[in-house]
Every structure is written in structure tokens, then in C-alpha cells.
């Protein structure tokens, strides 16, 4: 299961020594198996919100529930995919993917079986013994996704994982990401500042307001999959997202 609820999340940043309200009471419920994209203007605290869901940061107020249970710390039930991948350069691709399993004390042969399955799925098998410096940015993000999936988390948290990719690689991964979601039925929360990306990926898009941020609009995207970025029928969804983003008042 993986129903995650954020209740009235409030978070202050320190700005020139003064507290600045960044997240002003975000309420968001993501049902088990939902794929929700969060978009919002830069500096609205959407990445911070994701980090709070991951338990890597504490909110100043509010709480996060996973299947009704209050979360206090970080843990492998919610795995984060970082913007730059955060792969460990001293480990091979395979060892990176197996890291969390090793930490959990899963025996070696079992680890190999699991990692092999996901390396195959992400088309990384031939790079299993490579080090990360030998990989392109797109390959690195595949490894980061594989590393998250092997943990079989209830929720997958993705923080602008495709922001640094060239457009062809991104398009490819957008399609793959939808297939992964359909295959694994994971709950996914995906932060992006890229509106077409959100429209392609999300079954729902939550638009954050400028800070102090709240969920300004929640838009269901009922459209067949796999979607591609060029699909003109997604245009009307993108327009709605953009309109919600624009009605922000002064920056």
C-alpha cells in the first residue's frame, strides 16, 4: 500500500537571518497507485515539500501520514530519486543498485537476483560493472531509478530527476517512466518545473502557488497512456496548468 497524506505542512526558511514562510499549509493526499506531479514557480518550496515527505526535513507544523500512520523519520518505505541522482561514485552500477538491499541485510545471491531484474528493466545490464563516471547523465538517472525500485518502496519520490537531461533522453525516459508506473503500480510523487513533463506523466497534477505555497489547483489528467510530449491533445491540460501557475499575483 502507499497512500500518503500531507496535512497542513508549514515550513520556514532562514533568509538573511529572518524566517521566511516558504510552505504555507499544504494539504495533499495521494492515493495508493496514483502518479501525481507537483509543479510550481521556482522557490515555492516544492522540492522542500518532497523532502519533508521523504522525512529528510522536518516541517515546522503539520504531519505526514503513510497509510494512516504518522511518519517521523526517513526510511525505505519512501524512496527519493534525487535531481543529480546521488549515485555513489565508489561503487559499480550493480553495487549502487544493491546498496539499500545490502544495508537491509539481504543475502548476496538474493540481492543479485533482485538487482538483475531491475537492471534488465532499465536496460542497464551491460553497464552493471561500470562506474558512474563512465555513464551519461541519462544512464545515471536510470541507475538512480533502478536503485529506488529495488527497495520496493510504498511511495516513489522524484525530485526533478530529468531536469539535467537533453530533450531526446528525456522524451525516452518520460515514456519509460509511464511503463514503470503501469508495471509496478507504485505511488509516485514527481516534482518538476516543466509543465509538458507534468502533463505527460501525471494522472493528476498539483499546482503549488508562489510562497508561502499552498496547493492552488489539482487537475486530473484523464488521457490514454503511454503519452508523448508532442501529443497535441495534452495541450489543453498544459494550458490549464499554465493558467493556474500564472494567476499567482506579484512575485
Amino acid at each position, binding site marked *: 500500500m502507499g497512500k500518503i497524506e500531507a496535512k497542513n505542512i508549514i515550513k520556514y526558511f532562514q533568509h538573511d537571518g529572518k524566517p521566511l514562510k516558504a510552505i504555507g499549509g499544504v494539504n495533499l493526499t495521494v492515493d495508493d497507485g496514483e502518479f501525481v506531479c507537483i509543479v510550481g514557480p521556482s522557490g515555492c518550496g516544492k522540492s522542500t515539500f518532497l523532502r519533508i515527505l521523504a522525512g529528510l526535513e522536518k516541517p515546522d507544523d503539520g504531519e505526514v501520514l503513510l497509510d494512516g500512520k504518522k511518519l517521523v523519520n526517513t526510511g525505505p518505505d519512501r524512496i527519493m530519486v534525487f535531481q543529480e541522482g546521488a549515485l555513489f561514485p565508489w561503487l559499480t552500477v550493480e553495487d549502487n543498485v544493491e546498496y539499500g538491499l*545490502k544495508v537491509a541485510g539481504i543475502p548476496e545471491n538474493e540481492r543479485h537476483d533482485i538487482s538483475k531484474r531491475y537492471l534488465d528493466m532499465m536496460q542497464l545490464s551491460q553497464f552493471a560493472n561500470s562506474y558512474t563516471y563512465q555513464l551519461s547523465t541519462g544512464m545515471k538517472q536510470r541507475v538512480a531509478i533502478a536503485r529506488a525500485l529495488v527497495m520496493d518502496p510504498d511511495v516513489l519520490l522524484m525530485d526533478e530527476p530529468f531536469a539535467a537531461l537533453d530533450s531526446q533522453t528525456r522524451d525516452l525516459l518520460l515514456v519509460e517512466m509511464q511503463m514503470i508506473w503501469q508495471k509496478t503500480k507504485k505511488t509516485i510523487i514527481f516534482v518538476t518545473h516543466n509543465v509538458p513533463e507534468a502533463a505527460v506523466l501525471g494522472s493528476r497534477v498539483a499546482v503549488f502557488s508562489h510562497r508561502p505555497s499552498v496547493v492552488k489547483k489539482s487537475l486530473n489528467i484523464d488521457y490514454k497512456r503511454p503519452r508523448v510530449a508532442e501529443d497535441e491533445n495534452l495541450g489543453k491540460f498544459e494550458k490549464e496548468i499554465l493558467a493556474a501557475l500564472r494567476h499567482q499575483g506579484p512575485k
Partner: protein
Amino acid sequence: MKANLFGKKIAFYVLIIIVWQGIDSAEIWPDNIFPSPIEVGEDLLYGVSDGSLFYGIATSMWRLVIGLSIAIGGGMLLGIFMARVETVNQTIGSLVLGLQSIPSVAWVPLAILWFGLSDSGIIFVTAIGAIFAVTINTYTGVKNIDPSFIEAARNMGAKGGQLVTTILIPAAFPYMISGFKQGWAFAWRGVIGAELLFSFLGLGFLLNVGRQLNDVSQVIAMMLVIMGIGILIDGFVFKKLEDKVMTKWGLR
């Protein structure tokens, strides 16, 4: 290219020996002040043939290895603590900087009083001369770890000791290598310096014996051996290790 570089080096050293021999042949200084390269070479051969040279090298190396191991172990531990616990850094951190400014030989009187004229005393001087270089580099290394490495590991369930061995140490390893390299250089100076003053076996002792016997060629021969070992360990142990780590970590 590589052969060319090697040739250049050989030519340089041959030139030094020729100039050296030339100065000696000019007989500006008497032989007991300025020996010829041949005399120094004879001294080395003598040391090889009666085994005293190897015994001296082995003794010094053994002390170095023990002292440096203590320094590396202790320095890593201290450095990691300083980097991860702010109170430790604020208190012990300032002391470490102060202690690092003490030259290793300045620890010798204390070591003699504490340990007597023994191996332990020399090892103490070696370890204490090297430990703070390892500490400071480890501290810098851990402080410079990409925070997302630590977050990702914690997110995947790593805690406490696991976090130290699987993330902090490997992630900071490129810095630690610099610490080991500096530590080794300090340790080598420490061993030789301590042996000179303790006068208790080893290369430093042989160097001092040369002075006591007024044997300039033995003094120079021992200095050459000390330098030679320095070049070998720097070039073959630490350079290799550093290259390997830097490549694997994708830093070059």
C-alpha cells in the same frame, strides 16, 4: 614520451655524480669532509654485505608501519568525529590545529620520559607526528561529502556505523589519501628524527653512528638511503593508490 622522461632523469643523476666526482678530484676539501661518490658507494656496499643496512631499513620500516597505522586509524576516527559532531570540532578541533604545529622531534623528550629508550617511544613519536595530518584531511573530506550521498543512504535505511563505513569513509577517501600521504611523510621524518635522538637501531641510528665515527661517507650514504626509500614509497605506494582512487571516483 615516458621513456624520454626516464632518460632525462637518468641523465640528470649521472650528471650530478660526475660533477660530484669532479669536485672531489679537484681536492678543494679533504676526504673526511667531502667524500667521493665512490667512497659513499663502497660504504653502501659494505652495509649490504654485512647486512647492517638491511637490518637498519627493516627496523625503521617496521616502526614506520606500526606508527603510521596507529596514526591512520586514530586520525580517521578523530577526523570523522570532528566532522560529524560540532562540539567535538569546537573543542578538540582547535587543539588538533595547535598540536599539528609541533614538529615530531619535539615529542622525543616526552617520549623518552614516558616510554624510555624503547621501540614504543619511537613509534609514539612517529604516530603523533602523523596523526594530525590524517585527522585534518579526514575532517575536510567528510565535511566536503555531497550531502545528497548521506541523505540517499539514510533514505535507503543506513544508520550509525553503517553510514560511517559504507558512505562517510568511501566518500571522503580521496581526501583521506592526501592525509595518508602527508601522514606518511611526517611519519618518515618522525622515525628518522626519533632514531637519531634515541640512538636505538634503525637508519637514523646508523646516520648518527656515522657522525660519531667521523665517517662522512656513511652519513651521506644513510641520507641517500633515507631519500631513496622516500622516493620509492611516495612513487610506488601512494602515487599508485592515489591514481587508482582518483580514477575510480571519477575525479580525473
